[in-house]
């Protein structure tokens, strides 16, 4: 990876709190049109994110944060991610995620007339993302 000592500041902000505030050497996100890898010295950038895990590297170790859509901005020496919801793998409420997965699946299967397909799909995606991340990186 990048030579040691070369880092960029990563902030992840939700409406209620700053989830992450740390120096990293590499960030990998999935934007609407594909994966973006960001290393220190990246040009200014604004990207819209998908419901997908965000990976970052510090001291050669790879970490993961659950990011449910949102935006990423690179400006000089900081990367700012603003998102309605973000969780570290250890903070994910698995029960809640399972429940909302069941709810979303049920909604999609029932196919009622007033079904808001986009919303149900998004909610299912968020739940699956949380479950996935919790199992892979939460040590559960």
């Amino acid at each position: 990876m990048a030579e040691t000592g070369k880092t960029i500041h990563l902030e992840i902000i939700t409406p209620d709190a700053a989830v992450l505030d740390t120096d990293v050497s590499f960030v990998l996100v999935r934007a609407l049109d594909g994966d973006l890898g960001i290393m220190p010295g990246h040009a200014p950038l604004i990207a819209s994110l998908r419901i997908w895990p965000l990976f970052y590297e510090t001291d050669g170790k790879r970490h993961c944060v659950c990011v449910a859509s949102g935006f990423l901005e690179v400006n000089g020496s900081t990367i700012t991610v603003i998102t309605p919801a973000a969780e570290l793998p250890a903070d994910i409420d698995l029960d809640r995620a399972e429940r909302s997965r069941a709810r979303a699946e049920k909604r999609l299967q029932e196919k009622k007339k007033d079904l808001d397909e986009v919303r149900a799909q998004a909610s299912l995606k968020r739940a699956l993302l949380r479950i996935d991340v919790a199992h892979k990186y939460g040590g559960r």
Partner: protein
Amino acid sequence: MPSAREINRRIKSVTNTQQITKAMKMVSSVRLRRAQERALATAPFTEKMEGMLQRLSAAIPGENNPLFVKRDVKRTCYVIIGSDKGLAGAFNSNINKEMVSLLKDKPRSASYLIVTGRKPVEYLKHLRITPDYKRAGFSDKPNFGHAQNLARKATEEFLAGNVDEVYLVYTKFKSALSQVVTQTKLLPIEPSVSEKSGPSEEYLFAPDAGQVLSTLLPQYIDMVIYNGLLQSAASELGARMTAMTGATDNAGELIEKLTVHYNKVRQAGITNELTEIVSGANALQ
């Protein structure tokens, strides 16, 4: 003149009331602190999002996003944020007054009402007005989901052309003593182009500026509404705390006055009895 026993009963009842208002004061002051912290915690989010919006609108000045489109105003939507509970001083009546001034001199069809909180809904019922969309049960502990819900409704109505403007009416928290009913325009969004930034940095966009903008704008609305909800929650608790502090103090004063009165009546009774006994004894001699 009431008897000593009646006064005593009155003192007891005022003491009970005082205990309740004191408890409410304590509860709301603790929750006010929490609500204030939450309102402050959104500040960085707000700031970053506004910055991003500004840079985006600077990058594509002529963008015609449907959320920017200005139309002749035939119907205005008001998102009114009230509270679920009373006993919060003038908090609810301020919101109610604002609602009345918004609605008066206009036919009912010229406005579309989205109302949160039980109290304003009750007041509207009293005026024989039915809100077009109402939500309740979260006035003192709103979360982002509630804001998203309201934003979705307002945006839908705006995009469907049912309303031509959307305003948010909430109570801005200044301090525990002062809260101000505030009205801000939600839609159409007026892109704020800052002139001072000069030649702005060249940003890259992924996928492209237009698409980023169209995903950012709905979230921007969510955020503005969320801010309004948090401010109103802090205001409600602040108003309640102030009102309950006043009530507790007044009850204390009342108890003091009644106690003095009670003692006077009691003394008068004793004096009276003594005189009777003495005069009775004198008569026997």
